[in-house]
Every structure is written in C-alpha cells, then in structure tokens.
C-alpha cells in the first residue's frame, strides 16, 4: 500500500482504542434500532389487521 500521508503511529493506536469502543456502541445502537423497528412493524401490522 502506498502511503503519501503519514498516518502517525499514535493516531493508529488511538484509532484502535476508539474504534473498538465506538464499534461496540455502533453495533448496539444498530441492534436497538432493529429491535425498535421490529416492534414498530409488529404493532403497526396488528393495528392494520384490527381495522
């Protein structure tokens, strides 16, 4: 890989730390959104059926 900017060793180390933590949060948020969406769909379906 040709690098023409210096990524900086410290920046890589920090990125690994931050990305691991934020990556977990990111996944959790996504899972939460999907669960919310699932229930939302479920309830809107049952409402439609009632109608």
């Amino acid at each position, binding site marked *: 890989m*040709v690098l023409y900017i210096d990524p900086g*060793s410290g*920046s890589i*180390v920090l990125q690994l730390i931050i*990305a691991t933590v934020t*990556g977990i*949060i990111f996944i959790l948020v996504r899972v939460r959104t999907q669960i919310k969406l699932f229930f939302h769909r479920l309830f809107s379906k049952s409402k439609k059926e009632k109608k």
Partner: protein
Amino acid sequence: MIHSASFRDPSGFVFTENNEIFRAVKMSYQQNYEQLMQSGLYDELVLKGLLIPHIEVKKNILPVHESYKIIKPEKVLFISYPYEWCFSQMKDAGLVMLEIQKIALHHGMILKDASAFNIQFHKGRLVLVDTLSFEKYNDNKPWIAYRQFCEHFIAPLALMHFLDQRLNFLFTSNIDGIPLELAVKMLPVKAKLRLGIYMHLILHSRLKVKYSNRNIDKFKIRTISKNSLYGLIHSLDTTIRTMKFKPISSVWSNYSEVTNPVYSENKKQIVMEFISQINPQLIFDIGANTGNYSALINNNKTAIIAIDTDYQCIEKFYEQIKSNNVQNILPLVNDIANPSSSIGWRNNERNSLLERINPDLVLMLAIFHHLVINNQIQLNMIVEFLSNLSKWIIIEYVPESDEQFKLMTQNRQGDFVYYSETCFEQGFIIAFDIICKRKILGSERVLYFMKKK
C-alpha cells in the same frame, strides 16, 4: 501545465491545458480507479452531489508505461480554502467528508486522504474534487487519514467553537492542518470535558507524542473491523455535530437592520438596474455584509463571489444561502485590504485571492470610505487596483456629510481634507468612464456605474 499544488499524490496529478482542468491517473492507481468506477461508488457519490463528476478523455501526457487514464472533471468556478470559510462552512465540509467515507466503505473503498482543501463549493454544494482520494479497503486495516481528518476538521472546528471563529486563520500558517498539540494548548477546560474532543484531540495529541517514531508494524494488535471503523466515523460525526455556531453580535452583522429602509430599497433598485445593463458572468462583491445586495442576483447565469471581513456576516449569509438553496453565490471571509496570500511550497500551492478571481464586475457598496479611513489606502491606489481587477464597477460614494463618515472620522479631523465627491470623480476618470451616477434616496450617498477605459 502541471498544477503547482498537485505533487503529493503518487496516484496522479492535475494539469491545465487551454484553461481546462484535467487529471492524469497513473498506472499504479488502475485497480483503485476501476473499483471506484465499477463498484457503484462513483455513481452514488455523483448522484448525491458529493463528488465532482468527470469524463474520460484521450490525451497523451505521461510516458506510456505510467499513464492509465486522463479524466476531465467538471470545472469548479472558484477554488476557496478552509481559512476563508466561516464556522458552518467548515462544519459542513467535515460532515460531507465523513458522509463520503461512509459511502466509500459500503462499496469496499476508503478515503486515503481527508484534506479540507479537497472539498470545494460547486453549484451551491460541497463536493470532493479529488477523484483519486479512494483506495481499496483492506479488511481490518485502520484509516490512515484519521489524523489528517482531526487536524483538518476537528481541531479548527473546536478552536472556532470554543474560542473564536477567526482561529481557522491558523490554517494559513499550517497548510497540513492545525497541529493537535497546538489546538489542545489553546482549548479551555470545558472543551476538554467533552468526550469527542478529549478522544480525538487531547488523547490523540498525547499518543502522537508517545508513539512518535515507532514503527506501526511492530504493534501486535493492528487490526480494526469494518464495524469499528463505522463506529469511529460515527464518533467523529457526533463530535462535529455537537459543535454549533454561537451567534455574537458584531458591529456589522446587524448593519443592514439598522440602515434606513428607504435608502436600502432604493439602493437595491439602482444596483439591479446597473447590473441588468451588462449581464455579467462573475461578480465580485467586496464588503458584502450579509449579502443583501448580491442575494438579489439569484439566477444561475451570474456567479457571485462575496467577501466580507466579518465572520458573523458571512455565517448569516451562508445560512441564508443554504436555506434558500441558492447555487450561484459563494460567501467567503476575506479582507480586501489584506486578502488571502499564496502559501505552500514556493508560495505556489494555494493561490492568493487576487490570483484566483477574475470578475466582470466588482461591487463595492459602502466600502470605499472604509478603505480610505480605516486602512489609509489612497484614492489613486484604489482606482489602479480596481482597473486591474475588472472591466465594470459599481461603487458607492459616502460623502463627508454622512453620519457614518462623521462617526468614523470624529477623532481624526483634518485627516481627510481631500475627501470629496469631486476628488473621487477626478480620481476615477483617469482609468474609468462614468456610465451613470445616481443619488440614493434617504441619504447623501451616490452610486456610480463605471467602465474601464
């Protein structure tokens, strides 16, 4: 001719020919270019107005073994630099860069470059102009441009948000972005308590020092999953979004609200009448304030570069343009008495304001007296400057009897004995023909419409 700023990227370079811009793609970039074009990344970015569109052309410029393709990107009317942007322009540019990064990852690519100079205003939108900024994303590799992103966006935005908007001027002496340790030294304690700022600036700057000159390949853990990378982008995005423009009242940002409505309405009419006589393609509005007059010219045939020294004014102007989706006006922070200079290698990487602008018409409304009084620039110097700059000018003369003039000169009586309408006209007719002059209702001020001799 190879562009003077295009020497860092090993993947290609920009060159001009007959006033047209081209980008040469080298053989070494072939695989990346193919992925950009074939993965759907290019199409999605162009469709969303995030990347400058280009066409492939046939030209011979490189030695055959090095050349892969020559592309012709759409021409950006005016190249502006981050040190000429107000807070919201800077913020939007950072968010656009992150949006591009997210889309690139979806298509198996990543930004290898996060320079703020690669983002430009084009048809009212912020676009990435460096088509060769992408490379194939290798699973589990970190983002090499992370530090650059922090130095080009997070650091200047934090300084502008927590301290003073004018601090993005530090870019002029730090062409590679504002050093993290410099930003950290200046930031107040309340900034350091913000998680995003703490991580991306403070911790970042500490680790930068701690690990300087260490070979990254020797670290045992050097992988980063794609989800983690999305997490990092999300964190940068949130850090930027939490920084907001804080309006403070400046002398000039409320100027248009305090002026006499009869005067400003009549001035608008006269300005429009003058402009309609020549239909210029590019107007340079010097001392635009919040854009009351340039905003009148809302047609896509006339482009306007509007400058003002006041950050609050440009911020107001930019927000207004954004909310009205105006495409032909670009407001920038700049001082005509001290315009952006040329910086970088051999003073030739980023050009000065005056090298970049070539207007058909200059608008100088209620600014001439400021140059004379505040900047002590003499009449003949202003005339010479304008005659070198533009064929047409619309200039407002503020007489000695004007309240504003009296206020500005109250402690300097006797300094402006040669300031009069007659002197003004005599000075200008050396280089210009006065096509029309009109007194503005509700004031003693006069608007001149002139053509270069």
